[in-house]
């Protein structure tokens, strides 16, 4: 595309600015004038900007693709293209200094797109457009229609800033922006207290994560002297510096030495971690917040209080994957710390399993999907944690389709249930549904396809992406990139135990089995069997629809009502498109069949990380033989899980499930209550915080208010009395203050100041007396109590050597211009510092 190339050169690719500005424009227009414009204008505005943004994103990615193909053929590399990148600097914001060398760190508002962020951009704008379209019907009746679209557009802007930012600061702006929009949209119906509380909970949980991200950002600036992706990649090796000064001292904190009464805390061995481990752990804390992983996942299920399109867009397809994106983006940093990588993989696997167990028993269709999202995010982290960045990111991509489709499908069902059941909780309860297959054929078909995809039915998108993650979990092994070099210098490094890989695989297969079960359960309960919502029939004349709109908020109606209806085309069209993607998206990276266009496309982005630290257990050849045996595990998970669900809910119409729940009543209840994690946090975190707050309040009330405030106020009152006494001549008070100030100056300048600084080098000390106008000096260097010379002279520097283990006292006397003298005594002596060995996780 030479025309595009000439219009937008690689470093001045202004199209990016336009792609970000369009949704922002929509947000501003709908936010400020939306109420006056009317609904059709608001929808037109929102859809236009999103459609244009998607079209421009397509153009950008096509351009990127042509550049990539060029590098593929022109570079002479063996089938590996380069990372291609289009950048645009909005403006140069400011710069700061950092790093050990005091490097100049420019903080620019700069955006760039490469293979990785290109895919993200397409997902955000493409699925974003579909969800905007869906929302025009879903939210049609809402009073705050314009506000909703303003928030939604603002979210798209922030999300684009997040993925397109060329440095961590811009990413952070987007990161906070999506957090804000998520907060606003979760609490969109803020009239209800629990919605507002859910918004607050999301905000607070994210705040903990953001703290980690900030710390990681500061550490990166300190270690690498850069905050932009290229600069960090260039200097990433500095994170591995083995010198004790460059490592993060975990204990004693900050590398101090505990002395005196705290000496018992001083360990025999100092515990340190490498800069890479510190940075990546801090960044990963940020990821666990945004991407709802253990232990910070608690906000995501509650976030379902927001409108369903929001759940689909923000809490399934885009924002929650930001953490995975960050790990992929900084893969070359994460891979430097095998320890962190193992933590990521383990946290991911455990989250996948843990959330799946909760999803098994939930009755609210959105809650099932929410825990399913947490679980699937766990799979993604499992993937990137074992160094399979392409596989993890591929799951982000496929998940965006099938989970958005599932949420929108659930939204479609809720929408039609809501026509006659006005209670939110009841209209989302699967026990009130059933048999909807007949009434909502399109919703059913798309929901079923997406279910098949998420449970890993062979050759659907979910099969390929999940299978690849499980396969890589088994075969991949993250190793320290400098292992050999460190070994030569006698330094040990942390290594991932060999049993971790197979264990992760087993946990993953177990979670996948549960996924198959609970998703099939949701499908069966919702669409099969008999409809249980209300009696279907012609409404009697006395009970028209309008009557119960306000009067009846119970479980359905006493009298018959029309059958649930299919949703309008604005809602079914996005469903069909997304289901298509869910069904066929997998062929972009069908690794077992060697169809891997996406893999090749992303390879250059992860090349640095993969070549540095990812090994395959037993070599590539060995792993090759394991492809189908390991895939069999995934297929078995699908088959077993769905078969059990079929037997329980279709063949036996739910009886075994009830029996099982009866038999394990307590366990069932505990799972239904989400293992009571919220309650645990309530006691352990919120309770402790509240107790601390109350203690502080008591101290504040008793001591600060009682003692300090009263004392202060009486002092102020006394001062007021003094000032009143001076009232007639307040001007004199002013000049008196000046005179006092001047006198203070004079006092300081006239008083002699004998001060010296000492520099130690081994056993010799260089003492340097502070100079002063009109000052002269005399020394007692040998510590015999007599000055070396009776006369004051100009000598300001003195060198003294002290034998090891002994101390010496040196005296300095000064005489200033006014003939006043002052003196100081300096004690010199070598203190034998306890030589502490340095060990730790390198």
């Amino acid at each position, binding site marked *: 595309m030479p025309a595009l190339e000439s219009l937008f050169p690689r470093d001045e690719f202004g199209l990016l600015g336009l792609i970000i500005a369009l949704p922002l424009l929509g947000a501003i227009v709908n936010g400020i004038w939306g109420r006056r414009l009317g609904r059709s204008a608001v929808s037109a505005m929102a859809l236009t900007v999103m459609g244009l943004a998607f079209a421009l994103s397509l153009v950008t990615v096509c351009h990127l693709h042509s550049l990539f193909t060029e590098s593929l053929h022109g570079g002479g590399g063996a089938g590996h293209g380069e990372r291609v990148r289009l950048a645009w600097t909005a403006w140069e914001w*400011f710069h700061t200094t950092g790093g050990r060398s005091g490097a100049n760190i420019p903080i620019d508002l700069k955006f760039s797109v490469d293979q990785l962020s290109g895919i993200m951009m397409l997902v955000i704008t493409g699925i974003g457009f579909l969800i905007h379209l869906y929302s025009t019907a879903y939210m049609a009746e809402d009073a705050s229609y314009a506000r909703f679209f303003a928030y939604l557009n603002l979210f798209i802007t922030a999300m684009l800033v997040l993925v397109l930012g060329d440095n961590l600061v811009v990413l952070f702006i987007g990161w906070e922006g999506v957090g804000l929009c998520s907060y606003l949209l979760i609490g969109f119906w803020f009239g209800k207290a629990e919605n507002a509380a859910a918004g607050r909970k999301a905000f607070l949980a994210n705040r903990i994560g953001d703290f980690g991200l900030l710390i990681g950002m500061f550490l990166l600036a300190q270690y690498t002297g850069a905050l932009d992706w290229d600069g960090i990649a260039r200097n990433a090796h500095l994170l591995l510096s083995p010198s004790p000064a460059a490592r993060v001292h975990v204990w004693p904190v900050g590398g101090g030495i505990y002395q005196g009464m705290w000496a018992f805390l001083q360990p025999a061995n100092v515990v340190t971690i490498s800069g890479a481990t510190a940075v990546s752990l801090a960044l990963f804390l940020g990821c666990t917040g945004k991407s709802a992983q253990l232990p910070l996942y608690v906000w995501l299920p509650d976030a379902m209080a927001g409108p369903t399109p929001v759940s689909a867009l923000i809490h399934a397809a885009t924002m929650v994957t930001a953490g995975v994106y960050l790990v992929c983006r900084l893969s070359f940093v994460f891979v430097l710390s095998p320890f962190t990588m193992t933590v990521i993989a383990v946290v991911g696997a455990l989250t996948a399993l843990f959330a799946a167990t909760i999803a098994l028993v939930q009755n609210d269709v959105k809650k099932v999907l929410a825990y399913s999202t947490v679980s699937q995010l766990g799979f993604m982290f499992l993937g990137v944690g074992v160094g399979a960045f392409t596989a993890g990111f591929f799951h982000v991509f496929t998940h965006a389709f099938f989970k958005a489709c599932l949420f929108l499908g659930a939204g479609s069902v809720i929408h039609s249930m809501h026509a006659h059941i006005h209670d939110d909780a009841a209209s989302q309860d699967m026990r009130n549904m059933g048999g909807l297959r007949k009434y909502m054929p399109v919703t059913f078909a798309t929901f079923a396809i997406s279910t098949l995809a998420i449970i890993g039915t062979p050759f659907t998108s979910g099969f390929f992406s999940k299978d690849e993650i499980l396969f890589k979990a088994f075969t991949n092994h993250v190793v320290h990139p400098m292992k050999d070099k460190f070994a030569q210098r006698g330094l040990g490094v942390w290594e991932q135990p060999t049993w971790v890989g197979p264990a992760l695989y087993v946990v993953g297969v177990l979670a996948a089995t549960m996924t198959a079960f609970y998703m099939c359960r949701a499908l069966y309960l919702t669409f099969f069997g008999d409809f249980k919502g209300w009696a279907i029939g012609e409404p009697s004349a006395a009970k028209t629809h309008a009557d119960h709109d306000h009067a009846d908020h119970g479980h359905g109606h006493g009298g018959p009502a029309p059958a649930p209806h299919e949703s309008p085309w604005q809602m079914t069209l996005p469903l069909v498109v997304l289901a298509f993607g869910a069904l066929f998206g997998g062929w972009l990276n069908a690794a077992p069949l060697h169809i891997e266009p996406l893999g090749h496309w992303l390879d250059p982005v992860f090349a640095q990380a993969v070549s540095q630290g990812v090994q395959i257990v037993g070599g590539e050849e060995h792993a090759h033989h394991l492809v189908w045996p390991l895939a069999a595990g995934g297929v078995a998970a699908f088959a077993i899980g769905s078969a059990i669900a079929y037997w329980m809910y279709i063949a036996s119409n739910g009886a075994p499930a009830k029996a099982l729940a009866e038999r394990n009543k307590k366990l069932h209840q505990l799972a239904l209550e989400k293992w009571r994690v919220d309650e645990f946090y309530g006691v352990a975190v919120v309770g402790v915080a509240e107790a601390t707050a109350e203690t502080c309040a008591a101290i504040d009330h008793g001591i600060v208010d009682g003692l300090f405030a009263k004392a202060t106020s009486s002092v102020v009152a006394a001062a007021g009395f003094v000032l009143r006494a001076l009232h007639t001549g307040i*001007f004199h008070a002013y000049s008196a*203050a*000046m005179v006092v100030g001047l006198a203070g100056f004079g006092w300081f300048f006239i008083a002699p100041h004998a001060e010296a600084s000492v520099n130690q080098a081994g056993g010799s000390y260089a003492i340097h007396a*502070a100079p002063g106008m009109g000052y002269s000096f005399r020394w007692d260097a040998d510590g015999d109590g007599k000055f070396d010379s009776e006369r004051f002279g*100009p000598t300001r520097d003195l060198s003294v050597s002290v034998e090891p283990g002994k101390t010496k006292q040196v005296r300095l006397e000064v005489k200033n211009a006014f003939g006043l003298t002052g003196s100081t005594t300096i004690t010199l002596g070598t203190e034998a510092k306890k030589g502490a060995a340095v060990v730790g996780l390198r």
Partner: protein
Amino acid sequence: MMPSILALMPMLVIGFGALALMLAEVLTDAKTGLAVGTAVVLFTAAAFACAGWMVGPENLGDAAVFAPWLVFDRFTLFFEVLLALSGALAALVAGGYLREHGIDRGEFYAILSFSTLGAMMLAAAGDVLMLFVGLETMSIGAYALAGFRRGSPKSAEGALKYFLLGSFAAALMMFGFALLYGATGHTDLAGLHNALASESLRSPSIVIALALVLAGLAFKVSAVPFHMWTPDAYEGAPTPATAFMAASVKAGGFAVLLRVLLTVFGDERSASWATGWPPVVALLAVLTMTVANLVAGRQESIKRMLAYSSIAHAGYLLVGVVAAIRAPAQAQSAVLFYLATYSVSTIGAFAALVLCGSRGAEVVSYEDLAGLGRRHPAVALPFAFFILSLAGMPPMAGFFGKWFVFKAAMDAGLHGLTVIAFINSVIAAYYYLKVFVFLYMREPAAGAPIAKPMWSGEVVTAIALCAFFVLLLGLAPGAVLDAALAVGGAG
């Protein structure tokens, strides 16, 4: 010859422009144009200073003929631009304010212009005599502006106090310079520096001179305890004059402070960390920040609050001055950048304050602001905006001003001082945010007088320009920061 004229052009433009303004005031009845005329004159001067900057002071060859009286380096040029812009903005505010309040007498603009000229001379002064002439030209104008509301006893009282104390401070400073001349035989700053740097000079009179000069300078920048005139003078003066004093007079004070402390007393012994001025100035900074912020929180009058706020900002600036002795280039440019951000923020705040009230319904206390955000959102918004910048919230200019000064202090190893400055800026948030509480969260008590906004194109223009600069310095500080860095060690 041309280049040396270019060096003088900013001052010449203002001098002749001020004369022309006086003539115009006498010869025509049209008073409305005077504010805009003053602004045009001052903007022209700023443009010439910018031109001088682009040509580069090193290419102003013949400018050396003014030496040692006037020094034209990047330091001078930076201040010329800053002072001319501040003066122009204050003149625009005056255009609306004086008309609204019925004190629309033309001499205001001429005095303001001459006072700006004095401040520029102060920044450019290379000799003690020139410095004194500049100081008095600036100060006498400021005294007159402070007392411009002749009918108001408060105005007269504030101006008289300012004048008397100002004369006292000027006398102290002059005495100090006289002692220096006696000890060294020099009146030019460079010569003084060389004389003081020589080891052989041991006269106690120099130490006394340092104390006296320091006291005079501390008065000009209103550092505690030399600040007591400030609230009275700021409160009594017509608001545009207050804005002018808070921005231009303070900038002039800091120009001379930097010049004198870093040039004349920049030698190892005078700037010693044990015996010289840095610990004294550090203590002044701590006192100034702490006292001003604590007292500001107790004010009921908005103007007095802003007066104490301006004192507190002088404290942060003094932190930068102390840092400048250890890391000259970086810290000095941080001070210059801070002055730029502070000037536009504070003029903007006073301009917005002017716009919030009208004759007989002015904003005096917080109570007057109650509910303004709901009644007149368009008027309340700019006030809130500049208050945010003064409080140092990103992405306003004030944030980066503080950022660079604090960073310079950290880099200079002044950790304790930085922590105190940081705590102070947190305390300051209390009284700044109080403005928000009244603007947006309070309704006026029944029957209480409420402020009625006025309308004036000049004031709105000034606000728009200030807002532009505040956002520019906050979002794209690069250009101005580079300029401040280019000044480097030239002070």
